[in-house]
């Protein structure tokens, strides 16, 4: 059996399916555009309903909105969208198609990565191609967990976009055939360091996408133009919180990634830290995310500015991965492209 062949096939297919999923979500949002509702009321009601779902189910406390904002608004279900307006069946249908396709794409990409590991007889993250496809598995897995746990279908469009682009680039630009590792990668740290990097990378990516959505939504809220698909997003404040949670999860793990990389560098290259371009950018990325965390607790830097810093952090993460691998030579030149 030729695992390598099936791996490539599954990964190419997953890129295509993710793209279709993205189209479905785009159609979902386009359909939402026609669902014009009273933005502020629907958003607030829906959002607070979302927040209180667990409480209102487990405890006899009615979900009401704080005095001053639409006192006594009828509680709506989490998925209900805007009360009074036609339920947006088209939107719902496209959304479900998007989720179904995402599940198919996910199954394909997991198959591809596992088959790749079997073909290589080792953990499948020895070069850029393998790293990207593995990272996309984690990104989509995180999204799916959020989707089924907290109904965050609004992340569908950006996540499927990212997964389609990621796997698409991997199978076209970054592709390399299966090969054993160079001796410098023969180490347990190969598994530890890179698993940590892949997971924190996935969380940074989802957090960064949320930061972008936050900026879009915040602008609309400030201008009072929350319409269409923006109305089906949670409030900017909730998106910001979610974005923060992802970053807060990713940051300690990234700290560990960098430290584990330093330890591994000592084994493989005989020094902990040598300002290799990859190391330098890992540190730069780390410092930018530290800025993000500080900004969030500095008056005048919360919200928009912090979100911009998070996006810069993500850009730096990607530059370290794509730019440094392809443009700059260093000890980390294992991309194999």
């Amino acid at each position, binding site marked *: 059996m030729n695992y390598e062949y099936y791996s490539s096939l599954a990964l190419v297919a997953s890129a295509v399916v993710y793209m279709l999923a993205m189209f479905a979500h785009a159609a979902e949002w386009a359909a939402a555009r026609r669902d014009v509702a009273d933005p502020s009321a629907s958003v607030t009601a829906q959002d*607070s309903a979302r*927040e*209180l779902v*667990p*409480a209102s189910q*487990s*405890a*006899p*406390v*009615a*979900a*009401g*909105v*704080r*005095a001053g904002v639409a006192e006594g608004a009828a509680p709506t279900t989490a998925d209900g969208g805007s009360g009074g307006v036609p339920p947006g069946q088209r939107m719902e249908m496209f959304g479900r198609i998007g989720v179904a396709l995402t599940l198919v794409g996910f199954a394909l990409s997991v198959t591809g990565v596992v088959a790749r590991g079997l073909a290589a007889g080792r953990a499948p993250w020895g070069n850029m191609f393998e790293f990207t496809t593995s990272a996309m598995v984690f990104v989509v897995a995180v999204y799916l967990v959020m989707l089924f746990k907290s109904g965050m279908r609004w992340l569908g469009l950006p996540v499927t976009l990212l997964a389609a682009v990621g796997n698409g680039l991997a199978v076209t630009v970054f592709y*390399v055939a*299966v*090969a*054993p590792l*160079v*001796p*410098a990668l*023969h180490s347990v740290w190969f598994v530890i360091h890179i698993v940590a990097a892949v997971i924190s990378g996935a969380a940074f990516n989802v957090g960064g996408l949320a930061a972008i959505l936050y900026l879009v939504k915040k602008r609309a809220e400030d201008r009072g133009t929350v319409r269409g698909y923006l109305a089906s997003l949670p409030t900017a404040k909730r998106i*910001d*919180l979610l974005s*923060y949670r992802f970053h*807060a*999860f990713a*940051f*300690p793990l990234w*700290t*560990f990634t960098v*430290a584990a990389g330093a*330890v591994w560098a*000592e*084994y*493989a*290259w*005989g*020094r*902990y830290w040598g*300002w290799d*371009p990859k190391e*330098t950018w890992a*540190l*730069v990325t780390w*410092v*930018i995310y530290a*800025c993000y*965390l*500080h900004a*969030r*607790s*500095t*008056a*005048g*830097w919360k919200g928009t500015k912090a979100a911009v810093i998070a996006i810069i952090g993500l850009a*730096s993460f990607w530059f370290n991965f794509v730019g*440094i691998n392809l443009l*700059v030579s260093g000890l980390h030149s294992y991309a194999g492209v």
Partner: protein
Amino acid sequence: MADTKISSVHPAPAQLPDGRPPKPTKGPPALGLGGGLRFLWTQLTSMRTALVLLFALAVAAIPGSLVPQRKISPIRVSDFIAEHPTLGPIYDRVGLFNVYTSPWFSAIYLLLFVSLVGCIIPRVRVYAKALRSRPPGTPRNLSRLPAYAVAEVPGGNAEQILAQAAARLKEQRYRVIRDGDAVSAERGYLREAGNLVFHVSLLFLLLGVAVGGLYGFRGTSVVITGQGFSNNLIQYDDFSAGAWFKDSDLQPFTVAVSSFRAKFETGNVQRGAARLFEADVAVTDSPGGTPVQQKLEVNKPLNIDGTTVHLIGHGYAPTVTVKDGAGDIAFSGPVVFLPQDGNFTSAGVIKVPDGRPERLAFEGLFLPTAVLDDQGPRSVFPDAANPALFLNAWSGPPKKETGLPENVYSLDTDGLTQLKDGRGDTLRIALTPGTSYTLPDGRGTIQMDGWVRWVKLQIGDTPGVAISLGAIGFAVAGLCLSLFIRPRRVWVRARRGQDGPTLVEVAGLDRADARAGLDEDVAELAAGWSGDTTGKGSSTR
């Protein structure tokens, strides 16, 4: 007391998250030198400055990854200067070739650490005080808090409910006090502790790095298989050490390299990529000790009493025998050639200063898998499948012994003339193992006996690493506490209403931004009292 608490618990933060009152950042500072310094200090230790300095650090680290660095690739630096005759010297002057030791880079991180110290000290004090103080008193108007829920418990007993509430909150690891007709509780003290541990750990990380920089050393030595290295300054090819390092710190061990195996990919995918490097060495850890056989591999350094020995490179050394014009063996043995590319096209010099009547010298290439075509001689595979030696030759009168050190890898052609072949062209010698070449005009012969491999060992010690690694461990642990612990205050007030039912009010406040679940917790506390409880509403913000 309750009044002051109300002002501090309200949404608009009257305090910075670290518990300090906001500092005035605008307006003229107090006059005088003391006031000026104080102002500077306040500025330097403000969160905003920390933010700017962190950003500056990120930006300042970037050029070093794009411009070649002298410490890492000196050759690329000189190439860069040669290619950019105007830009190069400017770069050099502003330290762009030594970014990470440049004054401006150092200034940024030193300022950052000063700011950090200035930030930590007051926070430790505030925290110590907070640990000793009681949970805050109960605000008069609980409904004004960010999360609020109220329940009516018909026929409930206020005392009992409060006792139950206290027990429940204790179970959830709140610190709880009774406060009149209410219970006041607080939890999440470890968050600030985690934050402080994290920031203090950064200082220890710096300390560890500094210790390593001051006492550490690192050097490399090329060792031909069959030979050895003894840890002695003169045996190093290059060596660098911290300011407080003493030569006597070198452990007197020896490492004899008996063999070295290298394997390369022969398949079509990544052809030529390294697959295995492995050296057999015998380590003698003190003079006169018994040698211990060990295997040295990439990723598996030796550790000899704290000094590490890494295998960081390898290459080829052709073995040659040179007879001089007098017919005597003037040189015999392996000569280290340095790899120039991934296929180990290797350049080197064979010096025969003892040749008589004329000394001889050869310069050229060793090719492990030789190909000679219109691109000239080069190697097409890193392993020795078809080894060959291509040389030019020089001769000249013997040189006086000066005792000055000479670079063994480059040929100083002063006083030497290049040999020509019969037609007056430059003499080109091509040798394969076992063949020899007779130089023109009776100057002697050169024979290629074969080849051996050499390994490049890196010997070094970085004291302080334990401090740094420990610091990072604490930093990560502190980070997790600081990011995942949710400091929270909760109040429960139970009052017997005029007409029977007991009114239970619950309110909560998250002391850190961006936490969630407060409303749920408050609602849950307000609910579930025995009897037919009716919720009257909860509020969210």
